[in-house]
């Protein structure tokens, strides 16, 4: 007996205090989820949440289901590697509960000129309490150039995305959405020239708030006079929103079209509004240049310079307390779309993420000042590993940030957006695509993704229609609101296979990290195009198995219809009109003409700042007021170098 007591004392000494606490407090923790209400605080606000929902059969469905373990070993291990959602290592999710009353649904648009996309944004968000706008840009914008009559540029203006070349374009694009409202968030899919588009966006948000200030202080007439005087002086016509405002657009953001708040308000007032606006904008700019070099190729600047721009943005965010805007969306989506398997997608993306961490640290930024500004973006296909991609990502990130980088809880939480796999959609039997998307969305929702985009079934062949987008949206809504098991928020925890898959994928990611490490880290590996070649090999493997039928795809290589499931060819695709293209060129020319006096000095200042190694984004914020996208890109090429293609 004494022997046993001695052993207990000796083992108790070996048990870490935090582990002891986890064991001792387990029953009280469990009770939190069985009590009727759960209280917790977010940003100093106490929230009360019902822990159960009732089914039609009057069953009480727990939001969080807890393990039935009683033995300490299992209980401790579960808490150290799984834990309830909202607690380290955040395997099951980063928040204790899902947000109520807000589906993680993004509203996607981007076609033609800013007016057409603005109309579309208002159409898809009409009546929705939260406006989560996702912006797709045309390829001219993606490559940092201005619209032009040259045919090889001309044909691409406003196609598969919106054409945005100036601050005025950005103001029109988001007009009628209060960019500083807590219920608005904007995501911009832009990488090469991300800093410039972000500059347009920030200025648009600031000028909206200036407009609100002008109205609140009854300064409309005075400001109107000032603007008219400015334009009379330049002998030019004021720009305006082309066409009628769509339903839902109250015109916010259009009062100062063609000028900026700094031209019509006293400097101190403007500066104050600027600070406050920037601190309150919400959204994401993709700006992930590493994955561009590895998979997607919309690089315009030399990689070093592009990274420096990212660092400058983050540094600017820290100084200006921009906390609710993600300075980068570290993306695996394009890596997966280029053909990588889910493990490679996850490993490359996380390794890119840690590269940004190391780079920002080396620039003297503190982990807790920037880690909360990082977000992730993954693809969800149908492979088994996709069932756990979020779990593994959160767990690896949390362990590293907590123990290696000593980051706080907020820094440890990995937030990610999921888009269902575009590559898994096929041009044959396109009706089947919604079934694939549904399954992928289910993976994502069960895995507690922070936001989700479901693809439309016809995306494999054309630009989605209103009908197909509505169906895609319905997929999410049906899972979130109709599917009973989703009332529970940790439905996959505790499953043997899920736990085994999680361990397996985690180990595979570490193995890949070591491969990249051997090549000198992410940048070293990029020099020999390691990532690119790996993606290509995996793509080829999939294509081979798809081609020889070993990898069955229903309606594509098996289960063909009596007609052989032919490729569906769209009758018509949505393309931008002549009028829109001409209009974009005309407004750009007017903008450049209007600012021809001011622009050269700012472009020069931008170059000097770059050479002097100071923060480029700071000057960019001013340059964006009077310079077009192409002007800024070209000025920066001269001091930062253009991207050099590889083979």
């Amino acid at each position, binding site marked *: 007996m004494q022997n046993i007591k001695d052993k207990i004392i000796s083992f108790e000494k070996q048990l870490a205090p935090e582990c002891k606490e986890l064991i001792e407090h387990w029953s009280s923790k469990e009770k939190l989820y069985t009590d009727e209400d759960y209280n917790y605080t977010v940003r100093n606000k106490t929230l009360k949440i019902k822990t159960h929902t009732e089914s039609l059969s009057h069953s009480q469905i727990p939001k969080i289901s807890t393990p039935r373990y009683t033995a*300490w070993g299992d209980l*401790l291990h579960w808490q150290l590697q799984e834990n309830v959602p909202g607690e380290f290592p955040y395997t099951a999710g980063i928040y204790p509960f899902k947000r109520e009353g807000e589906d993680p649904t993004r509203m996607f648009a981007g076609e033609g000129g800013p007016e057409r996309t603005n109309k579309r944004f208002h159409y898809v968000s009409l009546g929705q309490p939260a406006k989560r706008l996702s912006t797709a840009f045309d*390829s001219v914008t993606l490559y940092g150039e201005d619209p032009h009559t040259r045919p090889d540029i001309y044909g691409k203006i406003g196609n598969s995305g919106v054409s945005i070349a100036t601050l005025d374009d950005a103001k029109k694009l988001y007009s009628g959405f209060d960019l500083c409202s807590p219920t608005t968030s904007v995501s911009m899919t832009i990488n090469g020239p991300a800093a410039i588009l972000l500059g347009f966006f920030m200025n648009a948000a600031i000028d909206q708030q200036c407009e609100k200030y002008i109205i609140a202080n009854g300064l409309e007439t005075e400001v109107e006079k000032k603007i008219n005087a400015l334009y009379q002086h330049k002998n030019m016509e004021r720009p305006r929103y082309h066409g009628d405002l769509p339903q839902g657009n109250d015109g916010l953001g259009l009062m100062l079209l063609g000028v900026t708040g700094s031209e019509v308000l006293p400097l101190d007032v403007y500066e104050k509004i600027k600070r406050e606006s920037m601190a309150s904008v919400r959204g994401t700019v993709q700006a992930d240049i590493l994955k561009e070099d590895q998979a997607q190729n919309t690089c315009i600047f030399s990689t070093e310079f592009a990274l420096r721009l990212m660092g400058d943005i983050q540094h600017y965010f820290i100084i200006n307390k921009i906390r609710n805007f993600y300075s980068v969306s570290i993306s695996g989506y394009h890596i997966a779309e280029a053909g990588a398997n889910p493990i490679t997608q996850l490993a490359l993306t996380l390794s890119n993420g840690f590269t940004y961490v190391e780079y920002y640290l080396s620039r003297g930024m503190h982990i807790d000042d920037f880690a909360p500004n990082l977000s992730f973006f993954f693809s969800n296909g149908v492979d088994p590993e996709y069932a756990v991609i979020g779990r593994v990502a959160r767990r690896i990130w949390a*362990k590293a940030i907590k123990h290696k980088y000593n980051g706080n809880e907020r820094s440890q939480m990995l937030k990610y957006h999921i888009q269902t796999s575009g590559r898994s959609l096929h041009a044959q039997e396109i009706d089947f695509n919604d079934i694939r998307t549904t399954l992928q969305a289910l993976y994502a929702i069960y895995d507690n993704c922070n936001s989700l985009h479901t693809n439309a079934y016809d995306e494999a062949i054309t630009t989605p229609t209103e009908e197909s987008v509505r169906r895609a949206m319905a997929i999410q809504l049906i899972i979130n609101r109709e599917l009973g098991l989703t009332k529970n928020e940790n439905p996959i925890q505790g499953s043997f296979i899920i736990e085994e898959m999680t361990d397996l994928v985690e180990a595979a990611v570490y193995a890949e990290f070591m491969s990249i490490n051997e090549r000198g880290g992410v*940048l070293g590996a990029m020099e020999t195009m390691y990532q690119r070649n790996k993606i290509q090999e995996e793509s080829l493997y999939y294509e081979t198995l798809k081609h020889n039928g070993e990898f069955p795809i229903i309606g594509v290589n098996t289960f063909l219809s009596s007609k052989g499931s032919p490729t569906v060819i769209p009758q018509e695709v949505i393309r931008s009109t002549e009028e829109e293209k001409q209009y974009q060129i005309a407004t750009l020319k007017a903008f450049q003409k209007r600012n021809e006096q001011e622009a050269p000095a700012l472009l020069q200042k931008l170059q000097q700042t770059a050479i002097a190694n100071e923060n480029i984004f700071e000057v960019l914020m001013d340059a964006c007021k009077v310079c077009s996208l192409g002007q800024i890109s070209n000025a920066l090429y001269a001091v930062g170098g253009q991207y050099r293609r590889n083979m």
Partner: protein
Amino acid sequence: MQQIEKYQPQNKIRIVTAASLFDGHDAAINVMRRLIQGTGCEVIHLGHNRSVDEVVNCAIQEDAQAIAMTSYQGGHIEYFKYMFDLLKEKGSSHIKIFAGGGGVILPTEIKELETYGIAKIYSPDDGRIMGLQGMINDLVAKSDYETLTELKNHLQILKEKNPKIIAETITIAENHPENFDKTKLLKPSTTIPVLGITGTGGAGKSSLVDELVRRYLADFSDKTLAIISVDPSKRKTGGALLGDRIRMNSINNPRVYMRSLATRQANLALSKYVQESIDICRAADFDMIIVETSGIGQSDTEITDHCDVSLYVMTSEFGAASQLEKIDMLDFADLVAINKFDKKGSLDALRDVRKQYKRNHNLFEANDESLPVFATIASQFNDPGMNNLYKAIMDKICTKTNAPLQSKAELTLEQSKKIFVIPPDRVRYLAEIVENNKRYDQWAKKQSEIAQKLYQLKGTLEILNKEEDEARH
């Protein structure tokens, strides 16, 4: 699946491959260009995001029979019609345009483009019916023709520097030497220096040349430049990948002419016709000529027969210092660049190469800085080492040839120093993260085992206590 046999070309076919402007989808064109090369063609690959102007200029300068492109980003109607028009405008309508864009290019648009004059747009159905090699066979067969075979008034008008005329003259010298008499070439009006650049494969020669070109164009606002770049042919297929242009950002300039040559004999570093090409560019009165050769490596001294000033480009990865004794170019080169100077061991390499250079040239007393051995990082924008190398090259050219090419660039004392994104002492970060996370996992496992033992012991103690209690009552 039945194997489709490769088409056998009758002529020397040169094809330019690229992906459209503002279009990063390069997976398909990369597959295609490999197959085209495998089918015996010389492929000049430009990579993604190329404007019509760039592609057309390249095709004309290279005297290609065809252009093969992919376009997945829309705007293909305008793009290809513009390409067709521009070729026509420049008198090169014979250059055929082939393209593909998966489902993005609609059947009606394919019809429209083919009616306009585009040779062929391959649809996904073409791919399914013909197979990949079948599609490539079709493309190569349609491109299997000779461009110009006999000179007209080419030699008289070379000095106008019309790229098409120069390109045709080089082709005739290369394909029909019987129709080319180099003695008929007109004499250039001044001394035209030839800079020869050679070095090991993977030393970053094309980037380095591009950086020299960029500086040259900025240094002289009116001087012209011709570049002749030689890559090896594959002995087995006769095809070649002429890949220097993909790395070059500065060459699409009216003052620059570039021509890629395949060795057409696998054992040579230089094309048999490199001297003819140089002579033609000389007769065209370019202010300077750069000849860059394939990286065969250590016995690459052939180039010195063709140039006035030679530059040897290497990296620190040559192995032991004694390996340097085998490199002939260290005897012959006027200048040596140790590129990729951010690579490990570069400082040692610089020291060893300097030593070897001193030995080779009996310069034992010379101080290190005076030696023409340069540390460069061509991939880094505005690299000080590259600035110094450029200046030294131009100075050498002036002193050796008296060419009127005095550089206005200033020599700096600055050394190439890599501006590191990740500091060198942090480069193991991924391994550290793995170690860190695995340490946590082990700790979690151990702690859980301890907790389990405690649970078992406490349970046992409880049972024993209970039994003892019961025994007492």
